[in-house]
């Protein structure tokens, strides 16, 4: 048993190197923030990039999964959701590497994990949250979250002055208090439309991905699932400030590619790099500066 965990699986049906390499890169791009967990994970990720034996050893990924789970417990309940998904993913890699058909096992594990995560996201957005379907979430977030501010200026047609005024309006006053001259609220039709598109576009796309991941795979459905996942990564992470989640989704998409699907695999790697560009280049800020000039 123990030697099986330490021994790299002989290739043939093995997990593609690209999946393991991208996962190690994800771990390095956004190190975890607990001092006694982060260095071990960073070291393991570095070693797995340098050594094929470490990269293909199940114990590497099981250890990383355990450390990420420990981090989740230590900072409970503050971890973001992609940290949970990262832990499940590393566990899925470790378990797949001990199986007789690692690539197929990981592909299925990846599909089910994505299906579970997107199904839960849909449950929250469509059923459990009181303020998503009625559009409040994006109407408020596009104005109050600094990370979406430039997109609101560009796509919502707001001026910087109106943005400032709206933020004042959305600041809560102490209970019972009222201002003599309350700030007015400006919501141009384009901004309202942007919020509606973000609300329903996200909901529909995530719902389709959940369905495509959870129903039994068929050839045509596989292509639709990949197309949906790539579309989600391409559009969502242009605005959503959670590159770590996007990188993980792209990596999990690579794990679902069949051996002959090199173009599809290349598309996921391209999206991985695109998300990196999205996160490092303030493109909406540049557009906003240009638009209001």
């Amino acid at each position, binding site marked *: 048993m123990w030697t099986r965990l330490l021994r790299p699986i002989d290739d043939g049906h093995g997990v593609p190197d690209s999946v393991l390499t991208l996962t190690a890169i994800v771990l390095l791009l956004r190190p975890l923030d607990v001092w006694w967990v982060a260095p071990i994970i960073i070291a393991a990720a570095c070693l797995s990039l340098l050594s094929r034996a470490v990269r293909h050893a199940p114990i590497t990924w099981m250890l990383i999964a355990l450390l990420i789970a420990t981090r989740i417990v230590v900072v409970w309940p503050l971890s973001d959701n992609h940290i949970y998904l990262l832990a499940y993913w590393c566990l899925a890699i470790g378990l797949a590497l001990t199986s007789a058909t690692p690539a197929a096992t990981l592909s299925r594990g990846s599909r089910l994990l994505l299906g579970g995560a997107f199904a*839960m996201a849909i449950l929250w957005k469509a059923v459990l949250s*009181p303020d998503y379907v009625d559009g409040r*979430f994006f109407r408020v977030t596009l104005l109050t979250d600094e990370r979406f501010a430039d997109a609101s200026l560009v796509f919502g047609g707001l001026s910087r002055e109106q943005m400032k005024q709206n933020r004042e309006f959305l600041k809560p006053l102490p209970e019972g208090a009222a201002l003599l001259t309350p700030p007015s609220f400006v919501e141009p039709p384009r901004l309202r439309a942007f919020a509606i598109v973000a609300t329903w576009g996200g909901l529909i796309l995530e719902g389709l991905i959940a369905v495509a991941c959870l129903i039994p795979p068929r050839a045509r459905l596989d292509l639709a699932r990949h197309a949906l996942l790539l579309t989600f990564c391409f559009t969502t992470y242009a605005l*959503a400030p959670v590159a770590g989640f996007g990188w993980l989704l792209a990596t999990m998409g690579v794990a679902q590619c069949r051996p002959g699907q090199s173009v599809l695999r290349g598309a996921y790697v391209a999206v991985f790099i695109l998300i990196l560009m999205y996160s490092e280049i303030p493109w909406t800020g540049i557009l906003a500066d240009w638009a209001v000039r």
Partner: protein
Amino acid sequence: MTGSVDPGSHGGWRALLPVTLLVAVAGVQVMLATTAGLSAWKGGGFGMFSTTDDGGRRYVRIFVTAPERSEEISIAPSLEDAARRAAVLPRDAQLSTLARRVVERERRYQRPVDAVRIQNWRVEYAKETLAATPRMTREFLYRVDAIAAPDR
């Protein structure tokens, strides 16, 4: 079969265990969110970007009382972590931890403290107008040298 990755039944328990854990954790998150006030954004239930009720719109107010003292205190840097946890998940465990840290800090500065009262607040937005209103969601009383008292 080797050319066909994921025909739908490969891997057995190895493929199922990670998603089983995901569903189990997410189930607990939904339960805590609906019964104990856990923010939808946290806890592994994938409720991020689904509601305005995130950690940034939740906050705690802390009041300290002693025989000649009754005042609201600001959240010192040493209390920030515990305050964030108590805001995101306002259960007795998180609130008691925060209250204990408050007591320790007050004693470090030789300030008397008999009880710590913690209020959990969150900002809500009106459906059409988006008018913002703070709403208290819980009040917790921690008596020094006694077990935390139940909610009032």
